[in-house]
């Protein structure tokens, strides 16, 4: 299976007495949108944290593009091309929208201190490239006119889109979105829906999505993975999931 971008096997995460993630498994293929759904507290964010290296999983493996990620520190995992957003938005709030995107491109920047110190033409060209890429993505997410505003002053929906743009300027292979539609109004959600599909079709990134908005999830997902109490409950296409009796029970049982 060569087109498996991300493979997660037997992933478990224990916090003291709580087994927050229990033997989870999931795969994401190239150019695929995979959604991770489940009731509140099911362990979705914890799975994200384990995959992206913010938590060291108690056991299990995370293979990205054929390479083991589960022993690497978080920032190295991000450099491999797997970047994430956060459920409770983490922007550099006192910095402008543009600067948020410049920082994200740190690894692509000209970091030679002497070149920067003397402001060489090579350095300026590199910085302009970063700004251009930032401008391009701001345009894509509809924030171009806000480029020079402090990101703290953006509306909630704009902040969410900025966070996605900030991931995209790093030119990732896999984009991991933790509840990107939370707090958005229906119009913004529809725009987000469109954006995610575009990212897949035009940029060729794969998307791993945590989302509670079932309309969004059912509409765009190629695969859905259902988690319940930390464990894998079911996976399949949206249609299969919709008709899966276990899933229905888990969701209705919660109410």
């Amino acid at each position: 299976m060569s087109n498996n971008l991300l493979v997660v096997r037997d992933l478990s995460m224990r916090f003291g007495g709580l087994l927050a993630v229990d033997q989870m498994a999931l795969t994401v293929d190239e150019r695929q949108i995979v959604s991770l759904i489940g009731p509140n507290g099911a362990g979705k964010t914890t799975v994200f944290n384990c995959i992206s290296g913010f938590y060291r999983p108690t056991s299990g493996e995370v293979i990205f593009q054929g390479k083991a990620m589960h022993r690497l520190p978080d920032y190295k995992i991000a450099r491999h091309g797997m970047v994430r957003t956060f459920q409770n938005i983490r922007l550099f709030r006192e910095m402008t929208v543009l600067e948020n995107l410049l920082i994200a491109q740190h690894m692509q920047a000209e970091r030679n201190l002497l070149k920067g110190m003397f402001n060489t033409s090579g350095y300026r060209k590199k910085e302009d490239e970063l700004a251009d890429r930032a401008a391009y993505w701001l345009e894509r997410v509809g924030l171009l006119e806000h480029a020079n505003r402090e990101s703290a002053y953006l509306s909630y929906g704009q902040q969410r889109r900025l966070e996605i743009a900030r991931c995209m300027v790093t030119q990732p292979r896999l984009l991991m979105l933790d509840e990107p539609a939370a707090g958005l109004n229906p119009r913004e959600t529809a725009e987000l829906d469109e954006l995610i599909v575009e990212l897949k079709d035009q940029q060729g990134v794969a998307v791993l999505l945590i989302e509670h908005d079932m309309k969004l999830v059912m509409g765009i997902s190629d695969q859905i993975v259902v988690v319940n109490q930390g464990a894998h409950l079911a996976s399949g296409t949206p249609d299969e999931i919709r008709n899966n009796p276990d899933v229905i029970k888990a969701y209705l049982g919660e109410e």
Partner: protein
Amino acid sequence: MANIKSAFFSALLTLFLGVSVMGLQLESAGIKLGVQVADSHTFWYLGLAALLVFGVQLFRDKLPRLRSDPEKRFEWPEVFKGEQRQRMWMALVIILMLMFPFVSSRGWIDIATLVLIYVMLGLGLNIVVGLAGLLDLGYVGFYAVGAYSYALLHQYLGFSFWEALPLAGGMAALFGFLLGFPVLRLRGDYLAIVTLGFGEIIRLMLNNLTELTGGPNGIGGIPKPTFFGLELSRRVDEGWGTLHEFFGFSYSPVHKVIYLYLLAFLLVLLTLYVIRRFIRMPIGRSWEALREDDIACRSLGLSPTWVKLSAFTLGASFAGFAGSFFAARQGFISPNSFAFIESAIILAIVVLGGMGSQLGVILAAIAMILLPELAREFNEYRMLLFGLMMVVMMVWRPQGLLPMKRPQRRLDTTRLASASTGEASNVK
């Protein structure tokens, strides 16, 4: 009247502290120590002070609020706005600063030189505390490393100031790097405590490595910087000779002082330029990003380890430069010059200036060094004044004199159209 109780206790506390500090004095009578009660005037003043505290505390709600509005941003008057105008002002200030020693007295030049040293220290620490947000209480350690580097390089290897200066900066940077490692995982209070310890360890080491550093006796006879090999003293036995002989003017000891001042000014200008560039470079952006949100930094592939280490290392190097200049100026250094209080003063300069702001640091350094010098008569109350200043500042402007206005990189909207269409055609 909830205030009555607090007012009463505040007044009582004032009285208690006042009486114990000022009302009673230890005096040695022969070989014995006796307690001397101050004269009645002092007690009248103390009573008055207590009454004042009582009154202020009682009516604290009705007093006008001292605090400046934190939301209100400092705006430059119109004449300071615009890049060109700012450049002109800067040029004017530089010219004035260059002229200053020729129209001033020796004492003032000396004080100005001291201020400049602290400006350099403040700017360096500002990288660590103001930009990267790492509370470093041991910064004086790197100052000491710089000073001792020059002193020792001179003593054992005969290095001149100019040869030792880059090495002193490098040594301080190396110490910053090495000491940065163990504290990487710490943050906030823990970081502050450990760096405080490091500063003290460096001082104690200098104190106790008696063979190498001369211990508490310090190192003397450190030569002043030369002017392209020419010395600024009355006569020399070797080397290139003296400046006044070379250029054929009569010797004056003030020349040396002026030269040191100009040198310090040059170093400060250099520091300002370098840090100004840093702030606009990827490295400076990453420092500020780390201060704002280290988790977001990690999620974007920035290694917090390297960001912190770079801040520690580069910040320390400026202390190293300042230290070697300090050693050259004093001609004598001992571990006493590098006590914790120095770290506290430098940190106070950064906080007072408004974390991260370069101009703020300069103003604060002037205030912090100049005020005690002006108030020499009150020398015994120096620390008291220092404390008072801090309290007033924290009440009046907790954000500092000139809170940092970030030099924001702006998106040039004229380039935008071409940029976005250009990239779009690349994609697919």
